[in-house]
């Protein structure tokens, strides 16, 4: 019993931290209809500004709090609402998820660009002094931090319950999530209600950020984001609906985690590996068994029938003219690139391009799963890691040649992808994104730290002996370049063949309408497993190429943050086209390399740039870069054809990614009336 209390009681403030974040997530979801992936980043932003104001600008704590939390946090929320989320139709779950993820990766990298690289230690305590023990509970000394977390959680929950249940604002908020248009038809200003909701939930994010910052000796975005993902488990257990249940599950999660810490013997694999993954395992279980989560993101707006249909994940069809122009352009660039790489490009840039080729291969896995399969997977980096580590270990321990190892690694990654697909058979959109994120975090905290598999923090060095018959370590890098080009070309061919084939057509159909696809006799489960497996395999190949190039396989190359960044990159450059992935891969490394020539505070700009691109996803599901290409080729054609109407180009109108069939006659193709067709003609 004593042991129980020793570990159980500290679990309460620990769990309150989860609870506070979980309440924030549920509140945003319930009042705005957005699952706010950026919540952790918002918390970090407020804490960052607060500490900079206190420690660097020397402002008093109360004033810094007012600026960072009371004014700054809601303002950020209002900006998100006004410029991003309000422009996304309620029904477009994927766009909401993508926007949230883009903000999540952009904010922590943008802050150092604005404020300079800051290392912020010992964040100040807000309410009670962290170093003072106020009282002792069953032998546990309750300090100022514990006390403030528990008190604030209780106050916030009570205040929110009062607002949501007993005020007309709360009722209007819930109504606006259900259907903004119905609220407006009833004479309510839905826009203002949603803005207030964003301001409220962002205020909570800011408060949570400043409050929880002292729990860590150094302020790092990573801590807040991990905390948020753990809190997702508590929010998920509450079906993303009930605020009190989110608090209860948050506290339970904290208490159970610490209790297990107390009861599981140290020095065992459960202690070192399973324990950190508890929130992610809980999230997986919640997604599997909490009934309310199966239809996450499913549109419940009674007015949705007047909506234009949801846009496809990305418009895949291009005009044939544009394809011709692009093909010619790409072949020219390719020839120039290959000749240059083998002749005049300096070694450091050759290395950059080589790693770009490896990333391109990895990104093609996102083209397959997201562009072709229509599924948003946030675990592609993880799958790449699985492939890479399997290949490396096979080489190091069994002396397997790396090309063979790459194939076996691809098989291993495909197997994990199939397991992931089986776990998420009933999920789509937000649910699938959460499931894959949980899987990525599970691997980060339980599988990749296993020293025997990944070499831990230092990673595993590749041994030259198993890279025969090639010598990939020669300084010119030509041999790796040739290998990477061959592999990339094969993968490109595979992707193109599958996309043009029956499977690609089926996947196109499933993206458009799962209901109608099943109604035609397409086995959705099988197709889903197939695309997950293919995509996992390609990720494994890409991951192996990546570690061959760096000559070291390290878990940090494949963590969940990178998985998120990868998705953001490919969505920006074009998720439906092969060239989108290649542009993403090369662009990513080239911009990174170019930024090494500017002051270090700007190095996060690579991610910020791509994230900014991904924020346009709702308007340009084909990718902002792809959109720009379509627009410029259309202008070129327009110029060449002496002024023919742009709209006359079939499938090429820029921004027509989701052009609606319900729009009516305008923009529709004219069709003659039905003629007297008969079966006689049919048979003739």
């Amino acid at each position, binding site marked *: 019993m004593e042991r129980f209390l020793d570990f159980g009681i500290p679990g309460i403030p620990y769990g309150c931290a989860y609870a506070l974040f979980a309440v924030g997530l549920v509140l945003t979801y319930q009042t705005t209809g957005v699952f706010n992936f950026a919540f952790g980043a918002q918390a970090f932003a407020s804490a960052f500004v607060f500490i900079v104001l206190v420690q660097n600008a020397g402002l008093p704590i109360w004033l810094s709090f007012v600026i960072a939390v009371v004014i700054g946090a809601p303002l950020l929320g209002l900006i998100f609402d006004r410029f991003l989320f309000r422009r996304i139709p309620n029904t477009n779950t994927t766009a909401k998820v993508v926007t949230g993820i883009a903000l999540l990766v952009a904010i922590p990298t943008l802050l150092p660009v604005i404020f300079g690289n800051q290392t912020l230690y010992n964040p100040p305590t807000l309410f009670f002094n962290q170093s003072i023990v106020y009282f002792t509970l069953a032998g546990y000394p309750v300090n100022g931090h514990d006390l403030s977390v528990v008190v604030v959680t209780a106050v916030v929950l009570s205040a929110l319950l009062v607002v949501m249940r007993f005020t007309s604002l709360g009722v209007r908020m819930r109504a606006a999530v259900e259907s903004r248009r119905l609220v407006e038809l009833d004479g309510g200003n839905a826009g203002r209600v949603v803005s207030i909701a964003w301001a409220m939930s962002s205020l909570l994010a800011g408060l949570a950020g400043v409050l929880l910052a002292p729990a860590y000796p150094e302020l790092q975005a990573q801590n807040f984001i991990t905390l948020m993902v753990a809190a997702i488990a508590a929010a998920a257990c509450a079906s993303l609906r009930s605020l009190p249940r989110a608090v209860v599950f948050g506290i339970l999660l904290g208490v159970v985690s610490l209790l297990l810490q107390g009861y599981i013997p140290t020095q065992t694999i459960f202690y070192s590996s399973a324990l950190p993954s508890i929130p992610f395992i809980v999230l997986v279980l919640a997604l599997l068994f909490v009934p309310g989560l199966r239809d996450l993101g499913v549109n419940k707006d009674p007015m949705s029938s007047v909506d234009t249909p949801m846009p496809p994940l990305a418009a895949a069809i291009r005009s044939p003219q544009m394809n011709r122009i692009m093909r010619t352009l790409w072949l020219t660039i390719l020839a120039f690139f290959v000749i240059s790489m083998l002749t005049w490009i300096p070694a450091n840039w050759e290395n950059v391009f080589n790693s770009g080729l490896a990333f391109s291969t990895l990104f093609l896995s996102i083209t397959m799963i997201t562009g072709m399969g229509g599924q948003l997977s946030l675990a592609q980096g993880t799958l790449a890691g699985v492939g890479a580590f399997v290949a490396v270990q096979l080489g190091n321990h069994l002396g397997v040649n790396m090309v063979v190892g790459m194939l076996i690694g691809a098989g291993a990654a495909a197997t994990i992808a199939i397991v992931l697909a089986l776990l998420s058979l009933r999920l789509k959109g937000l649910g699938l994104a959460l499931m894959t994120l949980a899987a990525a975090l599970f691997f980060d905290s339980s599988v990749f730290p296993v020293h025997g598999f990944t070499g831990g923090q230092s990673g595993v060095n590749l041994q030259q002996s198993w890279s025969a018959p090639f010598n990939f370590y020669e300084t010119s890098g030509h041999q790796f370049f040739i290998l990477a080009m061959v592999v990339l070309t094969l993968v490109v061919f595979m992707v193109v063949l599958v996309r043009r084939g029956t499977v690609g057509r089926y996947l196109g159909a499933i993206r458009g309408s799962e209901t*109608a696809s099943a109604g035609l006799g397409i086995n*959705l489960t099988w197709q889903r497993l197939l695309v997950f497996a293919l995509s996992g395999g390609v990720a494994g190949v890409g991951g192996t190429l990546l570690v061959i190039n760096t000559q070291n396989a390290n878990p940090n190359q494949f963590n969940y943050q990178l998985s998120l960044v990868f998705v953001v990159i490919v969505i920006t450059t074009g998720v439906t086209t092969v060239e989108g992935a290649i542009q993403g891969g090369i662009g990513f490394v080239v911009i990174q390399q170019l930024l090494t020539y500017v002051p270090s505070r700007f190095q996060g700009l690579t991610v910020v740039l791509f994230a900014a691109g991904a924020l346009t996803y709702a308007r340009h599901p084909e990718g902002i870069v792809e959109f720009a290409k379509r627009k410029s080729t259309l202008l070129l054609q327009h110029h060449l054809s002496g002024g023919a109407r742009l709209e006359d180009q079939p499938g090429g109108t820029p921004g027509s990614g989701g052009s609606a*069939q319900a729009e009516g006659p305008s923009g*529709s193709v004219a069709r003659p*009336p039905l003629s007297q067709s008969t079966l006689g*003609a*049919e048979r003739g």
Partner: protein
Amino acid sequence: MAGLQPGAVRAGGPDGGSNDSLLATQGVRKSFGGVSAVAGVDLAIGRGEILGLVGPNGAGKTTLFNCISGQERHDGGTIQFKGTSLDGLPTYKRARLGIGRTYQRVEVFPDLTVEDHLIVAERARHGDGRLWKDLCARSAPRPQELDNVIQVLELVDLVELRHTPVSALGLGMCRLVELARALIRRPDLLMADEPSSGLDVHETRELANVLRTLQRERGMAVLLVEHDLGMVSEVVDRTIVMDLGQVIASGTFDEVMANSDVRRAYLGVAT
């Protein structure tokens, strides 16, 4: 709607649920929470028969369609198609047995062209779609497939638009694409859910002709949900009327329209 006794009125005539029927449902029930959307429906449709299913909004017609095609799992009762029980079968297996359908809210594939819609449907009918064929570049449309596509597109007069992405088509034409997509599979039973909505009067009449022709020349049965009673009267052999999840009348079109229960359901005449 809640609280109605299931199966208060049976329909389907003397052949209701008989083994000769192409499709037979017996006591099919489906509830959503406390709302009983389909409350014990018996109906039977013979080969080559066009059966009209009409009723006011919320009568449970589309839910019944979804239960038959497998999009919803029915809570009780049995559904048989060509003598095979459909209970527990997933949607795609029911489709492969020979059930084609169109949807009340149009369900097309915005990324595909009109032609690709039909090729997908044609291949799914055969359960085609081996990955190795794609990887060996053996998945290009075959001449026979393209012939079939053209023939069906001629029926609905969409041949000229076959290379157009459906995202560029209007609602009415999307309905025709849906219809063509269902027809290329040569279904034994076509379930058409408000196929005329979005079409003009002339197009609706042509649609009725197409259905009649297919029935006559291919022996295709049609289960037709339609609000345009004029069209229903033109094409159906028999009509059943649903209200509040139950069948309230069955017979020829004129018979059911003369039925007092039907008039009450539509017009709300007090008894």
